[in-house]
């Protein structure tokens, strides 16, 4: 069963068709990259998958379940985790607090009023484990504002991992990173590959082609090609519409 299926999904903004009859199937445990030039509709696609945008037509399903009408939190609860292109973290909180919030979400409702959440091992231990996975444990007590850009991106990933997702949606995780930071992120993702289904949206072509099992190319709201890295690289349509255009 596919981890995520988009079936003839359409999203219009006025006259603009930001998602134009998109059909896509992401297989279980696959690392699937989505690439495309600016304005191709990648952000719209993420919005549609996470539930922040409501499609004008078509269906979306996850693990065989139709989630088209589900809210953002409900999809998250069902195992969809994401990172943001521009880091969105709770500023006044420490790195560990941020991750613990995701752990807490995973544990169900949070209507517990009197126990100090910062002292609950059930929240803090998994949070520290997630920080460990992204090599950020030594920065656990730092406030988000004190972290470097690269560290914030790692933290984003830790938050996403902490909820033990079935499907991980990464929105340009390398954006704005230096070479060294990018390499560390690629290594992190390589370590995750095959363990969770990952949808990776990324501009860094080297990263994409070295990591992805399959790649989909989005141009002007349409998927023009889906296939393994080599097939995409050699596809004439892709080359002319996108890779060629850039080269």
């Amino acid at each position: 069963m596919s981890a995520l299926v988009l079936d003839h999904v359409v999203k219009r903004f006025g006259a603009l068709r930001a998602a134009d009859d998109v059909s896509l199937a992401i297989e279980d445990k696959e690392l699937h990259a989505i690439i495309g030039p600016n304005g191709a509709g990648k952000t719209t696609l993420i919005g549609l998958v996470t539930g922040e945008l409501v499609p004008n037509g078509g269906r979306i399903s996850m693990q065989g379940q139709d989630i088209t009408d589900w809210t953002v939190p409900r999809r998250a609860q069902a195992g969809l985790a994401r990172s943001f292109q521009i880091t969105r973290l709770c500023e006044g909180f420490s790195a560990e607090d941020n991750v613990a919030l995701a752990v807490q979400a995973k544990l169900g409702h949070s209507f517990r009023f009197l126990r100090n959440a910062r002292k609950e091992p059930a929240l803090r231990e998994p949070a520290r484990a997630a920080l460990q996975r992204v090599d950020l444990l030594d920065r656990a007590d730092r406030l988000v504002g004190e972290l470097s850009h690269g560290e914030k991106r790692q933290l984003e990933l830790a938050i996403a991992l902490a909820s033990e997702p079935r499907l991980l949606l990464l929105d340009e995780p390398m954006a704005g990173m230096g070479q060294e930071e990018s390499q560390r992120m690629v290594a992190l993702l390589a370590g995750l590959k095959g363990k969770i289904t990952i949808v990776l949206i990324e501009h860094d072509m080297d990263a994409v082609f070295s990591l992805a099992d399959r790649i989909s190319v989005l141009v002007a709201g349409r998927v023009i090609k889906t296939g393994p890295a080599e097939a995409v690289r050699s596809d004439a349509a892709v080359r002319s519409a996108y890779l060629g255009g850039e080269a």
Partner: protein
Amino acid sequence: MTDRWKLLRSILIVAAAVALIALPFVAAMLGSTYAITLATRLLIYAMVATGLNLILGYGGLVSFGHAAYFGLGGYTVAILAFHLGEGTSILGFPGTNEALVAWPLAMVVSGLAALVFGALSLRTSGVYFIMITLAFAQMTYYVFVALKYYGGDDGLSLARRNTLGGARIVDAQTFYFVCLALLALVIGVVQRMTVSRFGMVLSGARADERRMMAIGYSPYRYRLTAFVIAGMTAGLGGALWANLARFVSPDMMAWTKSGDFLAMAILGGLTSIAGPVIGAAAFILIESTLSGLTEYWQVIFGPIVVAVALFAPRGLWGMLAGKQER
């Protein structure tokens, strides 16, 4: 947070607690019962501001109608006492003068109102939220102004204070300690809430709503819960106020009162537990001193409020704490 600041903070808190406990005795020694009355007023406002701070400071929700819940709490106590005096019943229940019945009921009434108003208001955000909370408070205000049976805008007097477990709370000192104990309880509960799972979600949703939704929370439910808790706290404050003033009137729900509560919370410092208490104290002391000093008190008080908004966004406690807390 440095150890020096931690020590200083502990000393300050202990000193404040000692001062609050000693105050009535000192006042009695100096023969100034007024100081006790004033301090009781302060405690009650501090309680309301503490509740408000939960949604304002931690939840980031600017409720411009908090006076409505304060007023409803006060009216609950007054109406129950009124029916006891008249020997009539309300909705099938006889009136009562027992605090153990009236005060929880005041919290229930205010909480229910907050539940209904909050459920509708929280569909909006930003300025819309500010204005819709104001609108609900105004509606409540006008209803009580027109409620002739309960005195309309002339208000309703209480013949005597509520009894507490059958015992009368006659003197100002006892009532002061009742208020102090309840304030301590409210502060304790709110303080624990802010670091609980619930509080973490509430603060998280203020910091970044989209992020919180992306990891699986619907902020609405948590905000509504906080809104109701804040409303209930205001209701308890109103119930105590009715006992202090032995009088309630729609004036308790006026929009300017909501503005006063906001000013108190901000003046002291949001997202701190000490803030609302300091804010309420400063607000009351400044306002009553100024209006005793000059009839044109507004000309001085207004700019003070402006200055706080402009130059002390973290309030008095924030200024004191400097960079130590955020």
